[in-house]
């Protein structure tokens, strides 16, 4: 084993929709909210574009955590894209549980006006993934 739990800098990949969470991240920026630099965002127009394969690929690539974040229920730019994403994440969890990776994948609703929530969420997920420890897949690859 390489690094120990809590004592490493996790790599976290976030899939965000353009209209809500990505905009929330922008607001965190204009509000100068500091959060750990462990997160890399991948912007998509809607979280409906999220394919569970993306999360698996990220984890297989060695990411320690993955999150998906879109608009609040009822506020989706495409009316119900965020519900589709939620449904797929729920389905994906059954597989992740078997692989023991369930606690590495999170999902949130963060709106364009929730800059503080975005920053806080980034802090929390970084802490949570630190507590979970490094992705074991990473050791297998390296």
């Amino acid at each position: 084993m390489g690094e120990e739990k809590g004592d490493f800098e996790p790599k976290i990949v976030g899939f965000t929709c353009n209209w809500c969470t990505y905009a929330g991240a922008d607001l965190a920026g204009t509000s100068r909210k500091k959060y750990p630099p462990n997160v890399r965002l991948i912007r998509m127009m809607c979280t409906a574009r999220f394919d569970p394969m993306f999360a698996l690929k990220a984890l297989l690539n060695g990411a320690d955590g993955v999150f998906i974040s879109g608009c609040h229920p009822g506020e989706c730019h495409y009316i119900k894209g965020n519900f589709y994403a939620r449904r797929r994440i729920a389905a994906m969890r059954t597989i992740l549980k078997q692989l023991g990776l369930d606690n590495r994948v999170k999902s949130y609703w963060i709106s364009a006006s929730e800059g503080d929530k975005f920053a806080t969420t980034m802090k929390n997920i970084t802490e949570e993934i630190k507590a979970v420890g490094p992705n074991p897949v990473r050791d297998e690859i390296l």
Partner: protein
Amino acid sequence: MGIAVIGGGIAGITAALDLADAGYKVYLIEKNAELGGKVAELAECETGISPLVVKIENHPNIELMLSSEVEGLSGSAGDFKLNVSGKEIGVESVVLTPGYDVYDEIAKGYGYGSPDVVTSLDFEGMLRTATVSDTRELVRPSDGKPVKKIGFIKCVGSRCKENEICSTACCYYTAKEAWEVKERYPDTDVYIFYMDIRTFGKDEELVADLKGKYGVKYIRSRVPEVIPEEDGTLTVKYEDLEKGTVERLDLDMVVLAVGLLPSKTIEKLAEITGVKTDAYGYIETNLTSPMETSVRGILAGGAATAPMKVRESVTQANGAALKAAMFSERTEMIPGQEERKYIDVGEEPKIGVFISGREGEIAGSMDLSAVTEHVNQLRGVAVVNSETNTLKETMEAVESGIVDQGLNRIVIAGYTPRAYEDLFRDACAKAGLNPYLLEMVNLREQCAWVHGAEEATAAAMSQMTMAVERARYLEPIPIESYPVTPKALVVGGGVAGMIAALDIADVGYDVYLAEKESELGGKLREITELRSGEKASGVLKDLVDKVASNEKIKVYTGAAVEDVRGRAGAFRAKVTGSDVDEEIDFGAAVLATGAIEAVPEGYFGYGQDKNVATQSEFAKMLEEGTVVDANTIVMVQDGTPGDGVNSKYKSIEVVSNALRAKKLKPDLNIFVLYQDIKTYGKWEVLYKEARENGVTFLRYDEERPPELKEGIVSVYDVIFNDEIQMKPDLVVLSTRMLPAEENEKLSKMFMIPLKNGFFLEAQERPKLVFTPVDTVNEGVFICGSAVYPAMIDESIAMGSAAASRACVLLAKNFLETPGIVSVVDEDICAGCGVCVELCPVEAIELVDVPVAAVTYSVMTVTSGTKKVARVGEGCMGCGSCASYCPSDAMSLKNFKDKQLYAQLDFA
């Protein structure tokens, strides 16, 4: 000739862009050296307004006249001569958007003069400074110590002797500032001193959030006194209205929510142009023609006509632009309407990376040379340019990189794609590069501003790698032009809908107007008298006659719109009804479905007790004179239970009905039971008049709402601190407003999200609305009480604004197909139909296609047809189908698997 827009704040910018984008020649005249006006001074607006400013600077149809003042005007509508700083220009019409000034004769008692007592506009500046400073802390101007307790005092210089009207904007901007403080510095205690909270619609929710989850303390108190102590503390002495005691609160900082005054330039402009001003010095307009001044051909908009917020200013500016256009003619080319040819980009990526450092934004927060060095090493990168500082410079560098250096992929680092992608796509297209070969990295909001210097540098490198890798896989997306159908559909024939239809028709386009009732008029048919005293029936008849006699408007009554297909510029729908079943084509749609009054069934016995009426029923009684029998009337303004939202005119309805009743019978006792009286703007004088005429206003405790038992109304008055009982002959209730029933269906057909059942506008900035009548679906506009229940002047302004936005689109000969849409690989598609079920806009259908012949050694088999999915015009590019497709036959352009994986592999 052209149109002159005088004043380059947000209203002037809006009006100029609407006109120029529709092909009119515009002279934008601004007395300062820069555009932006007051909005540019607001904390987070510069980033919102700068793309608009760049658009103006580069607009071929706008002649920008900065540091210029209007010195003379002669001629008349259709042929004005304007003298601008010594230069003469000829225009057909003029739009006045000179804006407002802030109240600056602040009374001594507020402690103004102490460095820690600042006005709200100065506070916005402080928030901005805090944004770019190293500490990012909110500090006291006097000693640089962090602000732990901050107080906002509202109504400074409004609702007072010196300025008796309500400045309208302050309640909201104070809430916004308090929200920004709490969002950025959650440990800071925030106190707001106020008289009434006059926020409406979604802003009411913001206030509820502030009181609730943010823990902001709202303290109702008239004119508190601020005493600067020797140790730097600011003691606020205020009267606790509920306890009747004088309280003291020690704060670190005080923000004075100063009122709005008409701009000082209005007086001079009025003199030059001859437009009338009202009693308060604003440009005079009318309730039923809110953008028209007393001089024909001279229009006005924004805070120069009355104190208002950004949303209303922009709405009026959109509307004023259209009204001004009526006097002029389109003479100019519309940008983007020239034929564009794109270079063949070939296989090998030649990536140009442009890092816009901008002092104080990125350059200071990370090691830019290290990032540049890193990017230089990445595969496929041909050029890295980190020398540009302004948006304009970067755009020019991109264009020359494409033209002179043959770049075929562009990566822009610095700005957020949300506000700047369109500008850079356009720059690429202008230079001959397919606009989808662009990738943006948000090094500002999502890197430099949120991480420490060392961390930011490392994160930036990683973000840059992801972007460059993605750029390698970007593909040109074929763009086709399709003709715009120069016709509009307006849904709803109330005031807003009729105005929108008339305005679009007057510009010269055909309009279909679909009204579900058998007659036009909407809510105006139920109203007897407008707040201006005008008879509603006269206004209604005038509008209906104009619509009926306009050859360009085809009216369908008793009709519904169904089966909407297509996209901006080329929609198709069915109009159905008892005597109509017609297929129509149109380029733009305006939704103006209005709102309906909720029946307050059971509240105060409404429905059973005949002595309980709604305000609109009461208005009818006033018209008939039946209230003369009553001696005591109790009006209950707040607390009406049930679905729906509060109208913006609720308090105005209460005070004006009370005044009308008092006029009919001066000795009538009228009690108004309320929480907040929201007579915004100039309506404040009605509130004052009502109090002077003996109408009694009783504010009750929110926890102890008034009750009616056996004919007795009891209410716990917070000022007397006691229960008061009344025996009214009539109880009048304010009603809540419900959205039109058809909104649900229209929302799905036109893809416009709803909030509480009302249509939601497109919103780019989190707390500012620069696009009040635009929606997320291009080509679909919203107006009137379908957006929020508004007064007639606002509904009319919104109707004209929606018309203006629609006409900008209809002025184009063609539009380009959207790039980010789904596409099917028909060879792989198994025709399962999962995507058909999923598509939120029903843009996908299954079609039969002939199956290609399959050859097995010597035998060729053709098996007739198979079903495949086909993506139609309605696709909005959400990507649901692409991610669900079990056989990977469906993909979303610009977000293909390989493009996302390229990013993922380097994340």
